[in-house]
């Protein structure tokens, strides 16, 4: 092939790849967004169908508010109560787990980033395990562990403990610590150490340096870490599934139950509300990060 032929071919190639580079993102965005948009749109559909549009209604949302999911069926009617209970349970679990894992995880981040002690590198690596090990393994391992521990307690004092809030919260803290540590450490890495040194040189002791200098600078990272922990905790299904007890159904467990048994038409509305809630959460975390970047 002569030179101009090759050039023409290469230019054609460039045009093709340019087009492909526009088509691919277009398809991927459609793939990512169509299911969600359809879900939200059909949550306002008059009728239970998820493929045929019968007109606009807010009846499904009203049903949730009026405590009467799917009128006519007695078993369904008390589901709004169960839904609200599940939301409450989720908030309790996520709230407590987030508070504790933020404190423990921030302490850990400080020690791993600044400390020079024996076994630091090993410890550092070990704390990445909860991030990589499949949640199903973590879930069943903890369930087996709690079962054995409860057996031991029963033999010792004759009381049978049962899984519930405590087991779910313990499990959530176990994976959240690592995520908080990672986020807080990223913030620590960008921090100028001379600020702390200046504080020390000017006569501040350890506590004063920490609370007056380190902590205020670290705060956006701590808040971002706690928001991530809160989201992960609210979202977790698998680990909770294996460690929940009677009466401690969280929101994901409730949704799973609905999907597995009988799908009420209100589920689109419930899902839409959950999507809206997560958008609010992301908005908050972005706002915090922007604040952090400015300070």
């Amino acid at each position, binding site marked *: 092939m002569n030179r101009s032929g090759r050039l023409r*071919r*290469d230019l054609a*190639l*460039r045009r093709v*790849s340019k087009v492909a*580079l526009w088509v*691919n*993102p277009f*398809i*991927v965005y459609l793939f*990512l*967004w169509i*299911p*969600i948009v359809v879900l939200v749109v059909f949550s306002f559909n008059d009728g239970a169908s998820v*493929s*045929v549009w019968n007109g606009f209604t807010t009846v499904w949302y009203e049903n949730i508010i009026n405590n009467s999911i799917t009128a006519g069926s007695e078993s369904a009617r008390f589901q709004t109560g169960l839904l609200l209970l599940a939301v409450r349970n989720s908030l309790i679990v996520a709230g407590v787990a987030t508070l504790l894992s933020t404190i423990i995880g921030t*302490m*850990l981040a*400080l*020690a791993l980033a*600044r*400390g*020079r*002690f024996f076994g630091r590198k090993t410890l550092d690596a*070990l704390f990445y*395990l*909860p991030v*990589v*090990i*499949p*949640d199903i*393994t973590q879930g*069943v*391992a*903890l*369930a*087996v*562990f709690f079962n054995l521990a409860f057996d031991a307690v029963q033999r010792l004092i004759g009381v049978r403990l049962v899984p519930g809030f405590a087991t779910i919260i313990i499990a959530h*803290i*176990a*994976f959240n*610590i690592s995520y908080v*540590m990672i986020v807080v450490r990223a913030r620590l890495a960008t921090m100028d*150490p001379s600020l*702390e*040194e200046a504080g*020390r040189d000017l006569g501040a002791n350890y506590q004063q*340096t920490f609370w007056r200098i380190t902590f205020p600078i670290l705060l956006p990272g701590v808040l971002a870490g706690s928001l991530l922990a809160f989201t992960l905790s609210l979202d977790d299904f698998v680990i909770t599934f*294996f460690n929940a007890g009677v009466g401690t159904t969280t929101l*994901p467990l409730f*949704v*799973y139950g609905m*999907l597995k048994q009988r799908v009420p038409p209100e*589920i689109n509305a419930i*899902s839409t509300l*959950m*999507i809206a809630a*997560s*958008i609010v*959460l992301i908005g908050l975390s972005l706002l915090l990060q922007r604040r952090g970047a400015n300070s």
Partner: protein
Amino acid sequence: MARVGTTPGDKRRAFGLVGPATFWLIAFFLLPLVFVAVASFMSRGSGGAPVMPVTLDQYSRTFTVFGPVIWRSLQVAAITTAISLLLGYPLAFFISRRRDPRVRLLLLFLVLLPFWTNFLVRTYALITIMQRDGLLNSLLERLGFIVEPLQMLFTSGAVIIGLVYGYLPFMVLPIYASVERLDMRYVEAANDLGANDVRAFWKVILPLTLPGVIAGCILVFIPAIGAFVTPDLMGGTRGLMIGNLIQSQFGGRGNIPLGSAISMVLLVVVFIGVLIYTRWGQEEQS
């Protein structure tokens, strides 16, 4: 505390700081995993509980009875990873080549936002599209491509689509980070020296962004191989994966030693992935 660990007081402080986290990690993460490892070498007692004697039976059963499911899980995870790469790489490249940083941020945000909504809700959204009387079937029918609704759910294919949908951002983000760091002058140099775009891609762009590609592949493969929700809701009996096997052994009529052995096999696969990630999936810090 410019230098924690320089004085005895600082050393104690560092131990106080790692103490609670280390306790939690050992008591509620490592110890349970050790129990699972031990249980995997034991026999099944009443109610599925692990009892003596020590045996390798659970492992031989894992590979004989459940070998096909494990093999298929590996295939499903591998195909999921490959599709995510084919969809994710051009997308990450496209995003990182936008000039306006606000556009880049918006495009990344549009990838991440679905990712932040509850996994079950996202899976359900996909199910409504793909089910028998779902939008996709009614669309295909109206366009005349099919006369009868297709059975799309409860197949391995459905599981793969669900997993790609769930984990695609894990592919896009590390590749985006790699491509953004790529110095485009190398590509221009390759073009100037006579390489066309295909050649420049294979010889320059891909090798330089390979750490991001490997990181993305491992970050998709690991959750995909350990998936439970997606095969459970979208796979039916034909789309069963390792996660479903494990779950069924820890239920009412289960076999905890057997479930533990299957979990250990899953862990070994994951650790191989982690090793690849730490060896080849991270860029040199410069």
